[in-house]
């Protein structure tokens, strides 16, 4: 095995670091406390460098950047605390449209997603169907040349700033659930759509979206009628393992080490001199190296054209579950001081650990819960029977 980076990959990492140092400010990160985890100026600057198009395969008209460089970009952004949510989703939607979309979508939508002028979001989950997403019942029916869409979606995060939603719909209720699904890219200014905010335990907001007799031309359909599950597989391939979320912990560990070195407990001792704190910090740093191994492994498989469902699930499962533990450990370490939220001027580093503690649970839920990812590993890697 060989874990070295090519000189091109090393140079790209240097370029990303320099870019983030020059373009990402504390004020920008501060502004995301309005609940929208997106920095428009940063997004546009990245688009201007061709970085949004980067992960999209060259044969599909994208930048053709290697999967390893995509992981490097995500890694450096997460280490620098740049929100990647809206960017990652938009790029994944562009890649899906290039793989499954028609000429209209490729010509009129994808270029705007990749040049920074348009954002998209996911519309998979519903009020009644989350992990069992293939049971989605938001209905799309033929009405002459048009489609008529009715239903509701949950967790359409970013819908309030996005121009479109990648919508999973039911087009045939009379066949096996996976075989009656169809995707559409729905412009969010289409009449009949309502977006309601869903406040969360964390700083970020999500949305519920409602579709009441929404009329769409067939040109907005993505993939075949009743071929939605193939599109879903492409979506999950990009979402788990490559597109982000492998490195949530380093900013928390940095903050914890800073606290441990520079703050005394009520008894006058410093946490960094406590062997239990040191062991927790080391364990967290080891987990980060394991995440690196997983992330680079997924990238290596992607570069080889290998479908990496199991590896993506392992990556997502491990990164999110250990991130939750790190947040818990280091929030505990700070004692009562750790309870201070971002609004408090006394909060350590703007309440970074406290904020991550509240955010961390959702990472083991969105994009496939830990339980679903364990199912993938049990079935796909260990050959155990399907069980629900």
């Amino acid at each position, binding site marked *: *095995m*060989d*874990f*070295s*980076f*090519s000189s091109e*990959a090393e140079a790209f990492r240097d370029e990303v670091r320099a870019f983030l140092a020059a373009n990402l400010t504390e004020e920008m990160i501060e502004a995301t406390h309005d609940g929208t985890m997106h920095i428009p100026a940063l997004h546009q600057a990245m688009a201007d460098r061709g970085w949004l198009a980067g992960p999209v395969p060259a044969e599909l008209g994208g930048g053709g950047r290697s999967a*390893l460089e995509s992981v490097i970009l995500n890694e450096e952004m997460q280490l620098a605390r740049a929100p990647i949510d809206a960017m990652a989703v938009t790029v994944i939607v562009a890649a899906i449209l290039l793989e499954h979309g028609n000429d209209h979508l490729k010509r009129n939508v994808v270029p705007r997603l990749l040049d920074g002028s348009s954002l998209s979001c996911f519309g998979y989950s519903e009020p009644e169907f989350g992990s069992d997403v293939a049971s989605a019942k938001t209905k799309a029916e033929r009405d002459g040349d048009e489609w008529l869409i009715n239903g509701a979606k949950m967790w359409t995060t970013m819908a309030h700033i996005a121009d479109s939603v990648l919508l999973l719909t039911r087009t045939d209720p009379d066949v096996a659930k996976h075989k009656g699904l169809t995707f559409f890219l729905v412009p969010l200014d289409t009449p009949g759509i309502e977006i309601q905010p869903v406040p969360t335990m964390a700083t970020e907001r999500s949305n519920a979206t409602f579709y009441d007799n929404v009329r769409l031309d067939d040109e907005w359909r993505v993939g075949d009628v009743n071929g939605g599950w193939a599109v879903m597989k492409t979506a999950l391939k990009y979402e788990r393992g490559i597109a982000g979320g492998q490195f949530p912990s380093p900013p928390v560990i940095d903050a914890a*080490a800073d606290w441990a*070195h520079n703050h005394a407990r009520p008894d006058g001792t*410093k946490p*960094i*001199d406590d*062997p239990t704190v*040191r*062991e927790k*910090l*080391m*364990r967290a*740093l*080891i987990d980060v*190296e*394991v995440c690196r*191994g*997983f992330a*680079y*492994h997924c*990238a*290596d*498989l992607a570069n*080889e054209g290998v479908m990496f469902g199991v*590896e993506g699930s*392992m990556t997502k*499962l*491990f990164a999110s579950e250990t991130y939750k533990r790190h947040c818990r450990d280091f929030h505990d370490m700070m004692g009562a001081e750790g309870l201070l939220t971002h609004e408090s001027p006394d909060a350590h580093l703007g309440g970074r650990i406290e904020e991550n503690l509240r955010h961390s649970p959702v990472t083991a839920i969105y994009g496939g819960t830990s*339980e679903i*990812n*364990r*199912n*993938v*590993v*049990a*079935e796909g*890697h*260990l*050959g*155990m*029977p399907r*069980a*629900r």
Partner: protein
Amino acid sequence: MQTRLTEDELVVQDAFGTFFANESPSAVVREAEQSGGFSPNLWAGLVAMGGPGMALPGSLGGGDATLCDLAVVADTYGANLAPVPLIEHAVAARLLATIGGHDELVGALANGTPVATMALRAPVDGVTRFVPAGAVADVVLAHTDDGIVLSRSTPPSEALPNTGGLPLAHRSLDGDIVSTDHATWDRAVDEWRALTAAAYVGLGRRVIAMGVEYSRERIQFGVPIGTFQALQQGYADASTRVEGAHLLAHRAAWALEAERADASRLAGMALLFAAEAARFAADRSMQYHGGYGFSEEYDVQLYHRRATAWILQLGDPSVEYARLADAEFGPRADGEAA
């Protein structure tokens, strides 16, 4: 970047995987437990395969293989709990080759006779305790404040009775300082850490595979227990950690081979993580075997005990965490370095 085994490494994996599967079935492991944790027949077979000397310089009779290749072998060795001191012998011989001036002995070690090992504890009053493979090795390398000691003596006939059925023994050191290069010793212990991490991955994968197989056969409530999500979720967690350990163990071996600055850090991390992953895997597999797993008859107990034992030859894992923390954050304010 290649995070999958290379073609050459796959050949090594196939050869040694087949060898250990055929020559180190659990009957051999069990028999060795009754005789000090060592199988002379298996060692002879491994010598015929070129295992003990594979990662020694060709000029000294070795096979010129890399530490990465050796890590692949260590994985297959761990999967079959091979009762031979492959890792200790290989690392000790490589250390002696690095020190230089012992070409004849290194050449003999490449052929597996005598058996060599390294003491992971510093000697006190001329005795080093709990030497891995100390019950069977003629050549013992140890580390003192003055340097590396090479001791040759007849090993005791018996091992200390222990959890892992390992050939542990206390050894009196009787020999000369052969090197004052302490970094060379530290490097050798890091090789032991990385290779033992790889062995832990083999152990972890096998103990999960055994459990998954059992879960297909064992019927409870009218269905195979493998259909229950409770088992699936546990095995999936264990497998995820073991596969993470696999990537970290081989990254550590690669970093040592490439002499990268972070090699020692990665080797220490790999051992701690792999040991914990394998222990978790053995715990889950024993739990899901039910009472039979606890019985002597089933092999899962052999894996459970070795998962516990291997890392303890180096000491309390907490001390290893503390050692890494000292390197990462500097010593504690009270000056008590790990």
